[in-house]
């Protein structure tokens, strides 16, 4: 008996049997215009390929910009965590008007549209590292991990307070199925910062959020670019349900996933935009997609792109890729 997208994705995440491989794609970010020109809208593309998931953007911004501005030093000096730690920099996440992107749809369409199609809906929010990169700049933020650990620990703790309230609004009031936390920790070959720093500064606050998501009956996923293999065991301890993208080209082997982690969490990804889609010729691309399906089909895997498809990918290549994925997912 055929499952709905929601049922199929939930089965993959919880390690149950499912009818065929669920599918999704990070598309609109760079290619919204071209997709609309070719297929009428991003939503039409998602319908054509019967996407099982919807990725919702458009929640509240977590900082009070006017308060942050009062802490900003002279232009020649850096904004440091000690300047923020005593200020009320976080916004109120409880105003549902700020969630209009989720409900009405800021990209293709909103939650109601996708729920009518029985899709599994997840809402994105930035993680601790990613969020403060916006204030400090990533290079300075990396230095502050080393120079201001106590202050950052406090700022991250307060951000976990904010995120927990965000979770309540997104799950309880709006009805999303999963909270997706985007927090880039990896470089191409390793973490950007040490596993010890991750364990001390990121893990406790992240774990608190994940526990809260679960207490509200939803799932929790993490997006991190790059190689995060050294904290994969920590993700298990944290209770993460889905990891995106499990980037094979960044030292994250699928074999390792299958051997060590496929009974712990699901992965979303598989179609590499860094080396394959938009870069390989058709024969090579087909071989690559078949190879990935050969490894991951039937496992706790949601077929998807590893990141947003880049703007050098032609619509013909995109169509070729998704025609093949659609076919292989149902074989």
């Amino acid at each position, binding site marked *: 008996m055929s499952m709905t997208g929601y049922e199929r994705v939930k089965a993959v995440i919880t390690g149950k049997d499912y009818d065929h491989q669920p599918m999704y794609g990070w598309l609109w970010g760079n290619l919204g215009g071209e997709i609309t020109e070719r297929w009428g809208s991003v939503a039409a593309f998602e319908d054509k390929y019967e996407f099982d998931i919807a990725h919702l953007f458009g929640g509240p911004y977590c900082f009070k910009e006017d308060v942050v501005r009062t802490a900003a030093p002279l232009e020649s000096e850096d904004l440091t965590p000690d300047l923020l730690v005593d200020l009320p920099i976080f916004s109120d996440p409880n105003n549902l008007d700020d969630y209009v992107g989720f409900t009405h749809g800021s990209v293709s369409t909103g939650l109601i549209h996708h729920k009518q199609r029985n899709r599994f809906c997840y809402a994105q929010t930035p993680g601790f590292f990613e969020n403060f990169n916006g204030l400090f700049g990533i290079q300075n933020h990396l230095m502050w991990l080393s120079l201001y650990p106590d202050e950052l620990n406090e700022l991250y703790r307060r951000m976990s307070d904010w995120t927990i309230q965000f979770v309540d609004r997104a799950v309880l009031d709006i009805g999303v199925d999963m909270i997706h936390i985007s927090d880039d920790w990896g470089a191409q070959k390793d973490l950007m910062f040490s596993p010890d*720093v991750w364990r001390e500064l990121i893990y406790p606050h992240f774990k608190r959020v994940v526990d809260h998501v679960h207490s509200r009956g939803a799932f929790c996923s993490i997006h991190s670019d790059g190689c995060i293999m050294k904290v994969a065991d920590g993700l298990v301890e944290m209770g993460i349900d889905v990891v995106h993208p499990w980037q094979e080209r960044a030292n994250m082997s699928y074999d390792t996933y299958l051997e060590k982690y496929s009974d712990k969490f699901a992965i979303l990804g598989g179609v590499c935009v860094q080396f394959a889609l938009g870069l390989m010729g058709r024969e090579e691309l087909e071989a690559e997609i078949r190879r990935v399906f050969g490894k991951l089909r039937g496992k706790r895997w949601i077929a998807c792109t590893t990141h947003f498809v880049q703007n050098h990918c032609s619509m013909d290549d995109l169509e070729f890729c998704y025609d093949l994925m659609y076919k292989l997912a149902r074989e």
Partner: protein
Amino acid sequence: MSIAILNEISENLQKGKAKIVVELVQKALDEGVSANDILNEGLLAGMSIIGEKFKNDEVYVPEVLVAARAMNKGAILLKPHLAAAGVEATGKVVIGTVQGDLHDIGKNLVKMMLEGKGLEVIDLGADVAPETFIQTAIDQNCKVICLSALLTTTMGVMEDVVKKAEEMGVRDQLKIMIGGAPVSAEFCAKIGADIYTPDAASAADVAVEFCK
């Protein structure tokens, strides 16, 4: 006595303690240690250890960044003394992220490692046109150009830089090094660049050799 203070500079630099490094550099100068020794045996020695540790995955990006910050603060204090003593850099390198690419952390890390090897670095920043790399290398008499790219969409510009060097008739006078997430040794060979290095510390080692 001077060896002890130079070791102290090196050790504090490795811990990223910029303020203490500056105090120790001043103290060493006051004690009559030569600026050249402070640079080579204190600052660059410490940075070299951090570079090796980074290459061996013993430290991560934050540790490199704070060490480089400490080195730069100490070097500012040394600069007039080095100039007065006629001390010159061991070589000169042009570096930048290629046109169309605005990412600069990888490039900055390489720059820090190059400076940590005593090389003078002309940093052209991000989104740099091919002709700017070549013209700067000619104008500044640099033997080495370091190209960085994070995006698969911009790595092709590295080939344009190689071609531009050929067009301008200076390819045989320049070593063109490439690095960045999507780049590989195979890609390096394909575009005719001189070498691909997988990390910032290796890039600095190779650049030093090229500058000899």
